[in-house]
């Protein structure tokens, strides 16, 4: 199995630091750009194992992201952006629990 890459999508200030770590950074300014970048990553099929995307953008791309949920690659993971977390990561967790069990049993 060959190596996969990790991509980070987000606004510039939030994601630029990841560049130093060797991740592939795609900085976007508008949701439309993000949509395009995300679709581009998916098209280049198995090349990306993980895509990190900021919650602010993920909010606008919920359709695309939920479509990727049932596939094995890539894993789309929400991260907070520079303006802090929106709690979407946690609510995604709750949603998964609801989907599996039928009701929210956390807390």
């Amino acid at each position, binding site marked *: *199995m060959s*190596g*996969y*890459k*990790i991509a980070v999508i987000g606004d510039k*200030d*939030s994601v*630029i*630091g*990841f*560049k*130093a*770590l*060797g*991740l592939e950074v795609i900085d976007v300014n508008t949701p439309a750009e993000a949509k395009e970048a995300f679709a581009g990553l998916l098209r280049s099929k198995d090349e990306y*194992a*993980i895509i*990190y995307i900021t919650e602010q953008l993920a909010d606008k791309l919920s359709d695309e992201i939920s479509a990727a*949920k*049932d596939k*094995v*690659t890539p*894993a789309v*993971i929400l*991260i*907070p*952006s*520079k303006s*802090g*977390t929106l709690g979407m*990561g*946690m609510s*995604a*967790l709750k949603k*998964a*629990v609801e*989907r*599996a*069990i*039928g009701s929210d049993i*956390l807390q």
Partner: protein
Amino acid sequence: MASITIKPTRMELNRIKARLKVARRGHKLLKDKRDELMRQFMLVIKENRLLREKVESGLAKAMGAMSVASALMSPEMLEQALLYPKQSVEVRMKYKNIMGVNVPEYEFRTKNDDPSEIFPYSYAMTSGELDDAISILSETLDDMLELARVEKAMQLLAQEIEKTRRRVNALEYVMIPEMEQNIKYIRMKLEENERGNITRLMKVKDAILKEAHGYETI
């Protein structure tokens, strides 16, 4: 409700009985699968929550340091400093099988082993906050990778559990009761035919006796 289209024959009865047996077995197996998946799922969820909290707080710290750095440096300088990363990462993927669900596991490989290689710029031209931001980020990266693993596992498990749960319910509340109904229907119909047959024979016997000897039973 026994469906009208069912033929009340002994062959059909045997067929449905065999199917019911398979359905019961499948139901039990699927139920066991669902329970085990659920257990695994709860473990993953617990792990996921902890990791997410850790990653979010780590990233918040890094973002804070980063915004200080970008305030101290001009945007051009910042971009220039990070333009050519020295480090690059590669992920290897393996699959782990949890109850028939293929869950990816990531193995993380950096091109350079030297941890100081994450700073792709000269220290003279950049502010110290940038160093902080990047070193915090690199510490968080391990957790982020782990988060990706458990989150994907969680999503895939959730999907599988949903599917299994539906199957269990369909078997338990639709398929099995329907087959039981059908069996009952055929049995009753067969018994009814049997009774009808006996009555007919008795009538015929009466008729024959009457004709032969001129007496009546009953």
